[in-house]
């Protein structure tokens, strides 16, 4: 439970951090995914760039019609933010069910998205909310649609030297939305996490965490629902994970139950 030796650097600004990442550093935010994997020696970065003290990454603001959550905002901060509750209440609801209080007080939304654990809670929520991940690299800033962000198991569209700076999502105060999770009993990550957003016009977006090795928008279910059906098959066409908490068959069943429950919650 002791890491390999590494260098520790603290970034004071986004520019500073991006420069250090360009030199081969690895971002350290809440450290609640990175440090455990370093302690198990599964991950051995030479240099950690602590982005946890960059004030501009921690703000939650409204910019025009958008809610903008700094990548360094903690789960706890988001769970209790009145602006979040007003504009994208599902984020506050879901954040409140991540880990335990100490995890929520350290872990950050940016760290969670960059880490891209297939069972993490944020991916389903940002997908269903149709959020945008704003990143900064040596060549400037770019925005990645959530639906383009997750590319596989623990992998994203992020380049090594890019820093997530914010999550931008349009205000959806007039939509109904929910995030429902069946927690893996040990880690409390999502065995199945289902996010559903029903816009004022009745159209529905559905996304899942925990079901497949890449979090996904369930476009098959969406088209059934948006075509007028009152229920839908979850995760059809997706390859489903299997582990000792849930085999493929049971996970698929749970995805269906949770989709049904989420739809009932936004009805």
């Amino acid at each position, binding site marked *: 439970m002791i890491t390999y030796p590494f260098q520790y650097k603290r970034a004071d600004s986004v520019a500073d951090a991006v420069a250090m990442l360009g030199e081969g550093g690895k971002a350290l935010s809440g450290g609640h995914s990175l440090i455990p994997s370093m302690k198990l020696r599964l991950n051995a970065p030479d240099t950690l760039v602590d982005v946890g003290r960059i004030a501009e990454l921690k703000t939650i603001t409204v910019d025009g019609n958008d809610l903008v959550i700094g990548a360094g905002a903690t789960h706890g901060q988001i769970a209790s933010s009145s602006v979040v509750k007003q504009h994208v209440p599902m984020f506050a609801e879901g954040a409140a069910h991540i880990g335990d209080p100490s995890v929520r007080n350290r872990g950050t939304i940016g760290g969670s998205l960059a880490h891209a654990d297939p069972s993490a809670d944020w991916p389903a929520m940002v997908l269903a909310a149709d959020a945008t991940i704003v990143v900064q690299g040596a060549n400037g800033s770019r925005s990645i649609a959530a639906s383009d962000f997750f590319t596989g198991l623990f992998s994203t569209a992020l380049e090594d030297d890019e820093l997530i700076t914010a999550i931008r999502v349009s205000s959806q105060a007039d939509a109904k939305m929910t995030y429902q999770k069946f927690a893996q009993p040990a*880690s409390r990550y999502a065995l199945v996490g289902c996010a559903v957003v029903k816009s004022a016009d009745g159209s529905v977006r559905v996304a899942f965490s925990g079901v497949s090795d890449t979090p996904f928008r369930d476009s098959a279910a969406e088209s059934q629902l948006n075509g007028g059906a009152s229920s839908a098959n979850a995760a059809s066409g997706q390859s489903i994970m299997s582990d*000792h908490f849930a085999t493929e068959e049971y996970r698929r069943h749970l995805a269906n139950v949770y989709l049904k429950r989420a739809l009932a919650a936004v009805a």
Partner: protein
Amino acid sequence: MSNKFIGQSIKRVEDKRFITGKGRYTDDIKLPGMLHAHFVRSPYAHARVVSIDTAEALAIPGVVAVYTGDDVAAINGVPCGWQVNFRNGETMREPKHPMLIATGDTAKHAGDPVAVVIAETKEIAIDAAEAVLVEWDELPAIASPADALKDGAPLVHSQFPDNKAFDWSFGNPVEEVDAAIEASAHVTTLEFVNQRVVPNAMEPRAYIGHYDAVADKYTLYTSTQNPHLIRLLMCAFVLGIPEHRVRVVGPDVGGGFGSKIYHYTEEALVTWASKQLELPVKWTSDRSEAFLLDAHGRDHVTKAEMGFDADGNIMGLRIKTIANMGAYLSTFAPAVPTYLHGTLLQGLYTTPKINIDMTCVFTHTVAVDAYRGAGRPEATYLLERIIELAAHEMGKDPAQLRFQNFIPPFDGVTQPGYQTQVALQYDSGNYAPVLQKGLDLLGYDDFRQAQKQAANSNKLLGVGFSTYVEACGIAPSAVVGALGARAGLYESAQVRVQPTGKVSVFTGSHSHGQGHETTFVQVVADKLGIAMEDVELVHGDSDTVAFGMGTYGSRSLAVGGSAIMKSIDKVLEKGAKIAAHKLECAEGDLEYGEGKWTVKGTDKSIGFGDVALTAYVPHVYPAGLEPGLDFSSFYDPANFTYPFGCHIAVVEVDKETGKVDLKRMIAVDDVGNIINPMIVEGQIHGGLAQGIGQALFEGTIYDENAQLTNGSYMDYVMPRADDLPMFETANQITPCPHNPLGVKGAGEAGAIGSTPAVVNAVLDALWSGGHNDVKDILMPLTSERVWRAMNN
């Protein structure tokens, strides 16, 4: 004797240091020049060591030594402390459990050590361990005890061609049991697994060996439940060093649940290495190692049959069980499935014929040994599952079926103890009222109404019962010796009255969370009529405490406390002689109370402190009496103690997902007299959480290569506060008739009774939903398993 403290929920004096982070655990001890050990371990469950190259590791700056199996070949293996022979008399097979696996030999479970690196820091030791190059020849491995008995199964020890450690049968002759079952009107058959669990003490194991060359004396600091036992095993059997040259200290210990009873190879190895290097050597397990290497618990595969006559009276019980021993025989391993399990199969029932057939097998897994309850939870699980299933099958009420079959009350004083069919004689018992009290707390009739209504909703409701009797304070030595124990099971105590009347009590019990510093002091202060502040409890150091057998099997107060009582009696007896001399009266004219001897019917008295001072400054003193006021005693109990109780679980089962939600947990326990109700309740709470953990959450998962696949808290499910309801606890008190405090033991009861109650409750819920054919669901009852049981 006053009762100022006994029976009071006095706050634990040790908690001040524990909750302010000031406890002193082994890993907190830092000695000058101390080195750190890290082990190179087998990544395979079964593999031959082809070669080991330590050159690269030795070249790393800060590395002091790297030892391999060749270096420690002269050291004996870690011994087993209990011998159980085969049914045919053949001696139990006891493979050598070496310090390190030597080149050419085979590692027998994942984590078996092949080398140890000793370095200036733990970091360097870990880095250097990665630089030790071991060439392995991986071999097929087996983790399941049932599979280990199959033809062609990979052998754990090539000299034992069937993987059997021993087999054993117990109880009435099997023909008599066969006949009883044959004659039964109804026979319930239950096949089940009592799964393997990981002890998960909060403090991982830690050891510091320190050889002082000037004094020619070793000190071992160890996170142990029994320092003297470790000294005996390590000195006499492993390292062959004279016991008086070794001091074993068990400082604060953060939990054990059994796993810190045993003598482990790492303990002996750091002690040995400190002599080679003449510097202290520390090893602290990390959590991953704890999962892999701390002796596990349970792991039985059982088929049980219980026969009933037409009225529902139990006629006979026949059991076949396979128990997993792991790769080596740990300190008490052979006793757990046999004398701590087979002897408990009477339960609280009048079953006239009982026979158990047990096969104990080796597998390529870490050793299995006593874990909170040790054999009694397995026995209780068997009995309480099968009787509940029998009630279901026969269409009887499960509570009534129990009432009908309970052994009638006996106090062990005016009525004799109850002689079971499986050797034990229960001391005192009164079983029906604990079940009745449980039913009252539950509100049984209302519950069945609510259950009927729930059957049509999304969530099924279920209630599960478990009534248990267990055996604590294992003894007497002569009996356990005849049963194969290689040690006595008494306890020692010394009560040293200081000249000022302050009292130091030395006990061979060793708290690893039980609160001895409070409970034992409550007893001593009351018996002597002095303040608790005037009594100090000393434990955990073989140089200060004369001897001790330690803390396990809920024995500390019943056995250790009784030893203290014996010494107190001696103090008061001698004190009375001194007091009589000072007061110029006969001893018989004196009475003791409130901390003084008083001449009966007068106001003439002399205080405890004055007598103590006189004993050490004996100017005016009885002729011929030795000075001093300091007495040692050994107490070897006449029998075990037999706590009992009733645990009731209420669950809700989500029909769609199979998720179980434990709504209520009722525990009515009779643990004999209670010294500190708060501490007893705390022990019950912890035990319940562990028992519920086994029912719903915990359990090892091995893959086809005998690798533990859930050795971390991300995958191994520990029960958490939010998984558990507020516990509803109550007590009945039936004193133990054969020890001076009338106490029985409370450390394991929670873990013994609760597991079957929870599983029974889930089955009851399923039955209420029409799933009448479900007989068993494998523990832990994961959502998927329950869902499958409903959707088969």
